């Protein structure tokens, strides 16, 4: 296949992203010890999403990828959203009527 000129981030950028990931991991662990009630899940998932974005954008080079690649990534996220939202359409409404 054709060798496209690859956009490579500097080692420094990678190092910063890596450290950010470590800090976020520590944060997740730390927050687990604080009782936030139902919000502990929200916080944990928010941190996880941030880490996912860092990995996808920097380590997986999505930031510098073609539109088609970005579309593929968005497609995956959209399908995840379908899975979660229609499943919740059941779970969140079980108390509504009868059943």
């Amino acid at each position, binding site marked *: 296949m054709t060798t496209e000129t690859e956009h490579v981030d500097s080692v420094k950028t990678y190092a910063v992203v890596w450290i950010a990931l470590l800090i976020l991991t520590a944060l997740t662990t730390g927050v687990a010890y604080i009782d936030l009630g139902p919000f502990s899940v929200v916080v944990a998932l928010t941190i996880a999403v941030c880490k996912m974005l860092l990995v996808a954008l920097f380590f997986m080079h999505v930031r510098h990828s073609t539109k088609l690649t970005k579309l593929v990534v968005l497609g995956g996220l959209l399908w995840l959203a379908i899975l979660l939202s*229609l499943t919740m359409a059941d779970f969140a409404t079980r108390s509504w009527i009868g*059943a």
Partner: protein
Amino acid sequence: MTTAVAEERETYLNAGHGVKSWLLTKDHKRIGLLYLFTITFFFFIGGVFATLIRLELLSPHGNLVSSETYNKLFTMHGVVMVFFFLIPSIPATLGNFFLPLMIGARDLAFPRINLLSWYLLVIGGLFAIFAMVAGGVDTGWTFYTPYSTSYSNTWVIATALGIFVAGFSSILTGLNFIVTVHRMRCPGMTWFRMPLFVWAHYATALIQVLGTPVLAVTLVLVLCERMFHIGIFDPALGGDPVLFQHLFWFYSHPAVYIMILPAMGVISELVSTFSRKAIFGYGFVAFSSVAIAVLGFLVWGHHLFVSGQSLFAGMVFSFLSYFVAIPSAIKVFNWTATLYKGSISYATPMLYAFGFIGLFTIGGLTGLFVACLGIDVHVTDTYFVVAHFHYIMVGGAIMGYLGGLHYWWPKITGRMYPEGWAKLSALVIFLGFNLTFFPQFMLGYLGMPRRYHVYPDEFQVLHVLSTAGASVLAVGYLMPLIYFMWSLKYGAIAGRNPWKATGLEWQTDSPPPVHNFDEIPIVTREAYDYSGTVGQEVQVG
């Protein structure tokens, strides 16, 4: 037609000899054949289980096998047929072989990954075979929790691992097809000149890539709960059993379109070739494949109507299910419209196409019955559902597969199959199929539950009819196995284009050379451009 030089010419078949040249091949055509052998093997294993099921149901008292054995029989029948035969069937054999040829490419985008995908199917299959030989599995092909995670003491883990591995085979095939369609089309082969077979496979590939990972994750969760008692699905461990059904059907409803879409692609080719006409409404048929792929992901909850899923979700899923019928109906109407004023010939592949259209329509319409909340409460988990999905998966998908196999057999092997025998077998299959499965609609409507081997005496007549049909069907399936092998040696030499069809695959030799085309073709016309050949029916030999 000049066929005298056929012996000397180098083809993909004689370009290398010995087991190694096959097991290490990167040629999409050889890999297609490897898949063909593999899934044929699994088809007959699944068939053995089906035979035993039908024999048992001859009598209402369950006196051939024990209840435990019966549970294993229908489970292994379903597992083998779905995951090791139907999912790979058309894409991995005909798709593998013809997708590159039809878009004027020399191979798939990733030949090594293609070979890897075959190995994954074989490895997954070995796990499943191990499970079957070691004692079998009894959860149903659907692995419902908490039975599969906490109670069944059969070989759930080995079977699930096998399906997990085979799933990656399917993902890799899909990935390969997507990249191939994007990057490997020959000059002039624009998206809207692609044969509808290719569109159908592109849509199928999207489902394979987007859906199968969810199945893999779900099976891993089942294994985690079964092996380490991590509570995910089992209420006793704090889990939610309906969550399993959501995850499972998020894959498995779209998976039914992995089975049917490629067959629809085949039917488009057949209808066009044997009516000597372009498919009516090409764009609609192409986009309906993509629409089915997308909408197919929004309806899975119709398998959960009586599971304890909320009524609201049931209504949403029922409503959405009706939308899937639209693109499916578009296809059926457009094939039918294509026939109008066509020069129709009744060669064997076309007989299969007619069979497909009729049986798929029955299967699809009964899908609408079961997608209706009120009716489904009555017929769910009965033979009505069994009949519904067999009309689609056997009457639809396998008809498409066999039609395609006959249609492209001359290209694959360079030889014609015997037309008379083939027509006879198509007829036997059609009759046997209906005799097997139509009584099951009636049984189900009368209340015969699925997955039971003891039943009230008054159902026996219909069960006997069904078993009789299954015997006829078995004969119909054995016939092609025999005459296809016979044709390898004795079949008439086919020549490049025995059907006088327009696709690029017919412009190269039969069997094709290793790199498919001596010269990469340049496409200047739409697909199915039969103008100038009007009135010339295909000569059936």
